[in-house]
């Protein structure tokens, strides 16, 4: 008897009891449905998070100045400027794991065009910032190192700012923008970047040279970096090395004795990305375990029905044995029935899960990630459930004594 005939026989036996077969396999259908839908949703959410963090630039390390203490009240991080321009230069020149360094000097300011005004964030920085943030220019150019040197009144503006001041269609490069009433020339328009991981509109920003920011936007503190320093490590693997180099350089420069606290703090965005990712993973894992429990319950349902079926068909088993079925034939017959039930359930679940995941990803606006491996895994797993829970009833059937079985009432 070849495998094809065994399968055909199993399918026919199951079709004799359509409703029962369907109800039996429902547990598997629901389990696989859950696996497919949840994994697709989880993967989609993960991809969404990754995409968001990738838009912020990769391998970013940030140094913030330390806290100030006034009369026992701790100021927030960055409340005391401790980072100097010399520190920045040292980081740029001495830290081998760092690829690019740029200051971020942040200020809210009112900006005006000929006929519109808007309040936005004005950031003083150096040209490296665009490399660090992996931010391309849509039209025009970024400002240059010599613009920084001479304190040129040039600005690179984000899409949102451009839309508010000049409308969505106008050519913005070459326009004059007044920042705190100081006229600047728009030299570049940044590509649209969308929301940051924290939900801020990244396109609602203006970048100007750091020297101009210090002289025209917010004076004072000439020696210190009035903000933070953003850097990018040479690679993701180099982030820990970059962090320790930053600490070594800054502690040395700030004469911090061993055992004393840093007067600055170092953070990296990968940690944040990892934190978000790991919470997604926990979520996905939780749903996967629910799905596993559901498959387990489905498997027990199959075993239950197969045991009932073996009992019901005891005489049939006896007859098959009498006309020459070997034990393995009977074993195969019932095992294949369990397998057909579970795999059919798995396939129905995959199709259902696929459509559910698609509907959900459409409504959440996530990318739809439907992996072939997940499908194979789900179908394989349901097949395994069929074997594991089918083997016991099948063995029971194959070990029946033909005489007893034939006499069974």
């Amino acid at each position, binding site marked *: 008897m070849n495998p094809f005939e065994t399968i055909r026989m199993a399918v026919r036996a199951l079709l004799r009891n359509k409703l029962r077969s369907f109800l039996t396999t429902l547990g598997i259908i629901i389990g696989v449905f859950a696996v497919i839908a949840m994994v697709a949703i989880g993967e989609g959410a993960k991809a969404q998070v990754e995409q968001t963090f990738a838009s912020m630039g990769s391998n970013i390390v940030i140094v913030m100045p330390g806290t100030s203490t006034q009369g026992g009240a701790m100021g927030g991080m960055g409340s005391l400027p401790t980072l100097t321009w010399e520190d920045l230069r040292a980081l740029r020149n001495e830290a081998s794991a760092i690829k690019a360094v740029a200051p971020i000097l942040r200020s809210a300011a009112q900006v005006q065009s000929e006929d519109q005004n808007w309040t936005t964030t004005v950031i003083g920085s150096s040209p490296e910032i665009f490399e660090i943030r992996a931010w391309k220019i849509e039209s025009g150019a970024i400002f240059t190192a010599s613009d920084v040197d001479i304190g040129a009144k040039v600005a690179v503006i984000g899409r949102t700012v451009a839309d508010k001041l000049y409308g969505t269609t106008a050519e913005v490069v070459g326009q004059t923008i007044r920042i705190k009433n100081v006229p600047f020339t728009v030299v570049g328009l940044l590509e649209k970047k969308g929301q940051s991981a924290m939900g801020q509109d990244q396109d609602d920003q203006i970048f100007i040279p750091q020297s101009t920011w210090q002289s025209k936007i917010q004076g004072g503190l000439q020696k210190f970096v009035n903000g933070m320093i953003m850097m990018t490590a040479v690679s993701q693997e180099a982030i820990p090395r970059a962090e320790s180099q930053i600490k070594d350089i800054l502690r040395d420069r700030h004469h911090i004795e061993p055992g004393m606290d840093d007067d600055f703090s170092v953070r990296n965005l990968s940690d944040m990305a990892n934190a978000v990712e790991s919470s997604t993973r926990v979520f996905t894992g939780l749903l996967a375990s629910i799905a596993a429990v559901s498959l387990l319950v489905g498997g027990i349902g199959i075993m239950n029905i197969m045991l009932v079926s073996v009992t019901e068909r005891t005489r049939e088993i006896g007859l098959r044995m009498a*006309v020459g079925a070997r034990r393995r034939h009977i074993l195969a017959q019932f095992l294949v029935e369990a397998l057909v039930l579970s795999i059919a359930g798995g396939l129905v679940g995959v199709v259902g899960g696929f459509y559910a995941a698609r509907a959900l990803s459409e409504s959440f606006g996530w990318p739809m990630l439907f992996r072939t491996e997940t499908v194979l895994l789900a179908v394989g797993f349901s097949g395994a459930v069929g074997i594991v829970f089918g083997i016991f009833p099948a063995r029971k059937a194959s070990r029946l004594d033909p005489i007893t079985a*034939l006499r069974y009432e």
Partner: protein
Amino acid sequence: MAETAPPLIRLEGVRKVYPMGDVEVQALRGVDLRIDEGEFVAIMGSSGSGKSTLMHILGCLDRPNSGHFWLRGRDVSDLEPDALAEIRNETLGFVFQSFNLLPRTSAVENVELPLLYGGVGGRERRKRSVEALERVGLASRMHHHPNQLSGGQQQRVAIARALVGRPRLILADEPTGNLDSRSSVEIMALFQALGASGITLVLVTHEPDIAQYAARVIVMRDGRVREDRRQVPRPAVPLPVEADDEPAPEVVS
């Protein structure tokens, strides 16, 4: 004697004991028996006489506790279950009192069953099954399910199933027990025809009427052969059709 072919069946000192709770039931207490090819034997005896146990041993469904059983010269007393299954498939055919057809399965598919386990290919299987159904006169109902057939027709399907593997021996356990007298005679006529074609038949029955159709009657009592006589079989002539006869259910196919 040594030159002639071995007898189809030879039993020597066959004993079978069943444990029944604390007591042991001596179903067979030393049976010696020889049945040659082409014989039509009826085994009679009351319930508990051991006739069913003997039938099971002859049918290779059970093994004796002691003694020997040679089937076509081969000692099958100690074979493993799967080896016995192979012998049943190749050498034996079974007919049961309750037909034992698979429900919701067409007649021809029921007949195909032994060939399925004998590894016969699909087309050949169907051809031989249709032939077997023709032999029992049911070719026209090959696609009917058992519940669309009368008792006599169901038993004829079962006989076709027993025949399809081209067995040397057909064992029938009370084949007419669930049939009316007219169908019973029809079935016995069929058996006599099969016997005439050279198939050996062993029939277990407790009805003397049925035993009359056999050429040899073995009477069992208390696990031993009490009587073994040959007789001129009564020819089974199907009764004329009567008005109150059981018609086959009409089927729209």
